[in-house]
């Protein structure tokens, strides 16, 4: 992370905007709940599906709970699920990718065949199948999404490790007697890091789409937790009278996903200018 990197990153306006939006949402997730005056779980059935008012900025939901407050608390759950799951998926993917790419041979073949099989299940299907096994809930949603991210990260890391492994300075390290451990931890991993950071950022958006899809279907985070996908699912019954109850969480999901995408593209260009426009 140096001045050159920052300069390149700042040059691309959309990435800066994406980064700022993400920071605002993270801030909202961490600090927001302390600033809210209303309880996200407080039921007030007499005031269900209210349109926006001074008291309820974004109206209320099917049980009369304040949509704005739930949106703020929901940022915590939505971001937590995606960060934890992608982080775990990245660590496991990184380890598998390094092992496959560095050692090659049978281990490589085995790891790659396993990723092939995981990738034989299209997108959401793998997450649904894992939830079918483990059951719904926040932790199981995280496990499902982590699992579903592993094959993508593994493949990217492996490809990057293979290309670095062939470079001359790695051979030089081997000649002067560096151990595998030193080569992997001091040379291979730091040099694959830019690829990993970029792809992790891009995967965060996908993770949010997947976790909100699972919650929308009733398979992810369970009520009364204010997860955005689950909020949308409940609000659709009053789409005509109180569209804001569904529009608010829907726009929040879209905005965060777009921002991660813009941030990821910007990081890619700034960290690795060679990849620009690819």
């Amino acid at each position, binding site marked *: 992370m140096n001045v050159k990197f920052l300069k390149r990153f700042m040059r691309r306006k959309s990435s800066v905007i994406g980064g700022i939006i993400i920071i605002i949402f993270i801030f909202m997730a961490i600090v927001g709940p302390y600033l809210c005056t209303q309880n996200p779980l407080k039921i007030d059935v007499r005031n269900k599906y209210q349109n926006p008012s001074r008291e309820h900025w974004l109206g209320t939901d099917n049980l009369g709970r304040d949509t704005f407050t739930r949106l703020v608390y929901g940022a915590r759950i939505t971001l937590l699920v995606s960060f934890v799951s992608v982080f775990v998926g990245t660590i496991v993917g990184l380890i598998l990718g390094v092992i496959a790419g560095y050692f090659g041979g049978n281990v490589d073949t085995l790891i790659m065949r396993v990723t*092939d*099989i995981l990738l*034989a*299940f*299209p*997108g*959401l*299907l793998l997450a*649904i*199948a894992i*939830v*079918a*096994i*483990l059951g719904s809930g926040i932790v199981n949603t995280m496990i499902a999404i982590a699992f579903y991210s592993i094959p993508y990260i593994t493949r990217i890391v492996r490809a990057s490790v293979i290309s670095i492994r062939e470079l001359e300075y790695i051979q030089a390290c081997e000649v002067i007697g560096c151990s595998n451990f030193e080569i992997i931890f001091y040379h291979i991993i730091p040099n694959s890091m830019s690829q990993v950071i970029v792809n992790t950022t891009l995967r965060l*958006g996908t993770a949010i*789409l997947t976790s*909100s*899809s699972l919650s*929308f*279907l*009733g*398979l992810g985070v369970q009520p009364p937790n204010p997860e955005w*996908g689950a909020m*949308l*699912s409940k609000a*659709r019954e009053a*789409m*005509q009278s109180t*569209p804001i109850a*569904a*529009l608010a969480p*829907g726009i929040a*999901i*879209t905005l965060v*996903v*777009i921002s991660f*995408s*813009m941030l990821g593209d910007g990081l890619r260009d700034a960290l690795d200018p060679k990849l620009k*426009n*690819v």
Partner: protein
Amino acid sequence: MAKYIIRRLLHIIPVLFIVSIVVFMMLHFIPGDPVVNILGLGASKAAVEATRTQLGLDKPLYVQYFIFLKNALRGDFGISIRTKTPVIDSIIERYPYTLMLALGGTLLATLVGMVIGIVSAVNQNKFWDNLLMVLSLISVSTPSFFLALVIILVFSLYLGWFPSMGVYTPKHYVLPILALGTQSVGLIARMTRSAMLDVLHQDYIRTSRSKGVSEHVIIYSHALKNALIPVLTIIGLRFGGLLAGSALIESVFSIPGIGRLMIDGVLMRDYPVVQATVLLISTTFVVINLIVDILYKMVDPRIKYQ
């Protein structure tokens, strides 16, 4: 060509074999006794034993697997725990709806996405390119179930142009296909754009231009043909994604497809239904990718099978 197809067919057999093992093992990965999971904790001992025998769970695991595989190959996925009817009957009844949605979505995404990608590439970094790429980014980032609700609100509730529920006439398919396909429009547009730009910067395109070949011929006959390969891959992958993603759209539009069947199966712990639907969707996905691979070879004779 025939040799290539046969070799590719042989290649997918192990993949499908392992997919079937994974799907079979699903029931056994679930913590606890599968029978108690199915019947609930309050079930009587006799009922537990009866179900265990009915599902063949009293036999050794490998025997159970071969029975599962043998039956699956004959289209027998057992009896649904919830409806007590053969799973295959529900699948035959419901699969056409899901296939229709996924095919419609893929077709929409391919046609619109490629046009957007070509227009963007030709106008690189100009107004239209920037606008279309922003729209593509929004389309990729909008969850399909949210888009579905928004288009129901606009085209069904406010304007009253299209019905919002069920599948009775072709008109009923318009909104679901739009909701399902839009996300992929953006993906295919971005892929087409970058593939086209890659090709448009090649030497032979410059040569053609300097020879005075018309821009139309360069774009449609030289560049697009070569840009098709990466685009084809993503179309194949998207088709699988849409088959699984159809569950969300079916749930919003109350369409009785197999996505909805699968989700209800997961919610009701109806494992034979879950196994059958997961196996069917992943098999379709693997087969579609095989077809895409074969199409590659037709589009580009340079590709060799390794």
